[in-house]
């Protein structure tokens, strides 16, 4: 928004003002003048204070994660200039050390990825299909079913956890055991329950968000493809999905971060071993048992934050769009 206003050369101030206004309107920055007065000095200072207060906790943890253990434990990170010290040891320790007392995050990091990638793709595809059906197929009760799905996204997960776990133990466990017997490399505790749980829980919001976008795909394009003899699968995968791609990207980022950051679903469905448990679960465990090992906790926390931060900073546009779409649902 850095449009330069045209400076009028007239001497008469009144005319100047009018021209100024005209120029402003012309370049589309007429709002600047009105808004400028709101951004007074006090406002700037308050905003600055908020920004600093919001950033300092993360910054402190980040700085600390590179400090040697003795220094973290004996001095505050804000004294880094009086007590300088820099090391990668904390990261090396939490990620690669195989000693019993180390967090051994490497394997949990892999788990987080192994949960989040299918945990995003499965509900996204199924959700997009359902959204397409809601948007473009007429059937009885479509409205009611859609409203039901919409309402479900607000219902607390807590309502579903216990019976779902019972169902999984009853029906999924034999399948998992069988899988382990056929392919011993796949442990008895595998990702299946967590994937399914995330798919189930992610669907309502995904369907709702994608429905809005998919219903905006021009109907003529779909009709044209149908006339050309494309079958439903082709129409969906070759035409509707590519057209809705920006929206799908936003929703995918949302679901990915949701799954990556989740703790509750993991706690209940992962079984808690290094075979399945994601980073969040491991971190929560560490804060409970080793809450004072700050050299480990700081580095471990950043290992878990790095993926969301990369996603956030590189795909911020999509992230914000997804968020706004989700938020304007009222």
């Amino acid at each position, binding site marked *: 928004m850095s449009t330069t206003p045209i400076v009028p050369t007239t001497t008469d101030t009144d005319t100047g003002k009018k021209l100024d206004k005209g120029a402003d309107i012309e370049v589309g920055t007429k*709002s600047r003048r*009105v*808004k400028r007065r*709101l*951004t007074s000095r006090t406002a700037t200072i308050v*905003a600055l204070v*908020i920004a600093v207060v*919001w*950033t*300092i*906790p*993360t910054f*402190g*943890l980040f700085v600390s994660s590179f400090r040697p253990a003795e220094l*973290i434990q*004996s*001095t505050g990170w*804000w004294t880094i200039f009086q007590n300088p010290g820099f090391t990668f040891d904390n990261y090396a320790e939490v990620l690669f050390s195989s000693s019993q007392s180390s967090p*051994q995050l490497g394997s949990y990091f892999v*788990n987080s990825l*192994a949960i989040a990638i*299918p945990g995003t*793709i499965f509900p996204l595809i199924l959700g997009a*299909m*359902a959204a397409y059906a809601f948007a473009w*197929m007429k059937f009885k009760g479509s409205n009611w079913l859609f409203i039901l799905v*919409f*309402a479900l996204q*607000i*219902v*607390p997960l*807590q*309502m*579903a*956890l*216990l*019976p*779902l776990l019972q169902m999984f133990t009853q029906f999924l466990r034999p399948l998992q055991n069988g899988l382990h017997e056929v392919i011993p490399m796949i*442990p008895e505790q595998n*990702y299946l329950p967590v994937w399914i*749980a995330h798919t*189930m829980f992610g669907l309502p919001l995904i369907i709702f968000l994608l429905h809005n976008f998919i219903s905006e795909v021009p109907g003529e394009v779909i009709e044209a493809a149908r006339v050309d003899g494309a079958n*439903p*699968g082709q129409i969906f995968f070759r035409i509707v999905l590519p057209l809705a791609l920006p929206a799908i990207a936003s929703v995918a980022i949302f679901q990915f*971060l949701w799954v*990556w*950051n989740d*703790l*509750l679903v993991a706690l209940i469905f992962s079984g808690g071993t290094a*075979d399945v448990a994601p980073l*969040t679960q491991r971190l929560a465990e560490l*804060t409970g048992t080793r*809450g004072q090992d*700050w050299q480990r906790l700081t580095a*471990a926390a950043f290992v*878990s*934050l790095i993926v969301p*931060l990369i996603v956030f900073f590189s795909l911020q546009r999509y992230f914000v769009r997804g968020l706004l779409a989700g938020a*304007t649902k*009222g």
Partner: protein
Amino acid sequence: MTTADLIGKIIQVVGGLAIFAAIIGLLFFFLDKAPKRGKDYGQLAVFLAPAMILVFLGLIYPAIRTSLLAFTNNTGEFNGLDNFVWMFTQPAIVNTLINTVVWVLLVPTVSTIVGLAYAVFIDKSRGEKIYKVLVFMPMAISMVGAGIIWKFVYDYRQAGSEQIGLLNQIVVWLGGEPVQWLQTSPINTFLLIVVMIWIQTGFAMVVLSAAIKAVPVEQLEAAEIDGTNPWQRFRNVTLPGIRGSLVVVITTISIATLKVFDIVRTMTAGNFNTSVIANEMYTQAFRAAEPGRGSALALVLFVLVLPIVIYNIRVMRKQREIR
């Protein structure tokens, strides 16, 4: 992690994705091969049924089961309202309920006010984007990560020794004694609430900032020509203009707050009188082997969310009717 473990994990992911693709592929294959008559129903089923079956099995059916479980004891026998009587008579659980109310009152209000003020203050200012990113960043990270970040801020060292937690250091600088923040009730609940506010303010800010930018400039100009001051313009033009977004922000944050679990679990595990319903539900149902009590707590959570659900459905139906 051994190489064999890693290979096992890769096999699982690749295999899982392949099987998923195969199932979807087969569905469409049969749809294409199916007899032409009644094809519309087949098409509908292929597109809609998988998601609906999963939603039914994963959410609707379990929610009904949970509602029934709420009226049973730990051996699965019907015990009427015992679980609810227990909830409202046990001091620890009553405390949990009160805490939840405090959370739901504070988090949405404070985050919305701070987020709105921030959005207004940085609107059209230089470096608006950077300002936004700084406050918005906590939205992207996990609540577990946020919990650790703030636990570090609240860390306590004995008086006299050097503090490594920022909050206690500030207290010491101001001439006070360091406090065991997370162990001291009731201040600890408020300190946990700060973490949630820290996360949600960014959300409020981004949504409200977009709403503020959508307020027609003509209205603001007209108000300015009428000789109003900035506060009056904000109060009478901007605020009514962003009413819809405000409602959305407040309801969304309220729901998120009601369900808050990770922060409490990571920072205090619900000890020292900091528990909230979602955490207590987990503790009762999955740690204390009291599925009935856990379900009853989940049901309370649901009842608290219900008004928001109903409100949203009504708005939604209106929107669908317009379309």
